[in-house]
């Protein structure tokens, strides 16, 4: 799921020796990151927290139920990113 979310959010992936780190940005401003385990049977249980969403929303992000635009709108509503296009 972590890889799917990183791909959906067009994360900048930094490869480390034993894991990857996905950095998320919006309009050039970085606002979140999470670790991606390699070759593991399970995902990182802290990913939803680091993405500022619920576990249910994280699962929806991993499927087609929550789009990238919807996620960014949620982040704007929560104040994690600013909507520069509207001058706010």
């Amino acid at each position, binding site marked *: 799921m972590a890889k799917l979310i990183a791909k959906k959010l067009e994360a900048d992936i*930094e490869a*480390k*020796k*034993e*894991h990857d*780190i996905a*950095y998320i*940005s919006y309009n*050039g*401003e*970085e*606002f*979140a*990151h999470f*670790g991606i*385990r390699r070759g*593991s*049977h*399970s*995902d*990182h*249980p*802290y990913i939803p*927290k*680091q993405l*500022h969403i619920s576990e249910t929303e994280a699962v929806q992000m991993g499927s087609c139920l929550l789009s990238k635009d919807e996620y960014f709108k949620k982040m704007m509503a929560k*104040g*994690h*990113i600013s909507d520069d296009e509207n001058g706010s």
Partner: protein
Amino acid sequence: MNKITIISTATNISYVPAMGQEAGFDARVCVGGFYTQARVIRQNRYAYSNYTPQKPFFLTENEELSLALTSLPNFALKKEIPVLVTYHGNGDFCAEIAGIDISIAADSIGDCLKMLKEYVESVYRRYSAKRDALGKGPRRQLEFLEAYIGQERR
């Protein structure tokens, strides 16, 4: 409830970050990235011990263990970085720098701490270089890390 052994009896503990602890007393020691008790046999700048812990250390599911990063591979530390380790069952451990949302999961506590060190260095390097392009969360993380992380080693 499952109990997971996170330390086997160690026989050659070499690094004891309990400076000043007197010989003959137990001290908190760092073994392979996590802490246990060991008996100090020589008092020095660092105390050394070859004491074999008699009781294995257990971490139960959803129990928190407070540890600290005492070093980073490429940076000096101004002070130890506090870390919370939790066991989530199914062999999944999480290490978290409490309060700033930097956390990583792995199959053992040792792996968790090793990966967390890489993670912390990555975030610190990246955010230091992008100071003007950070949201409020990353800015807070950078401020926190700057209080703990010193100069990069050459």
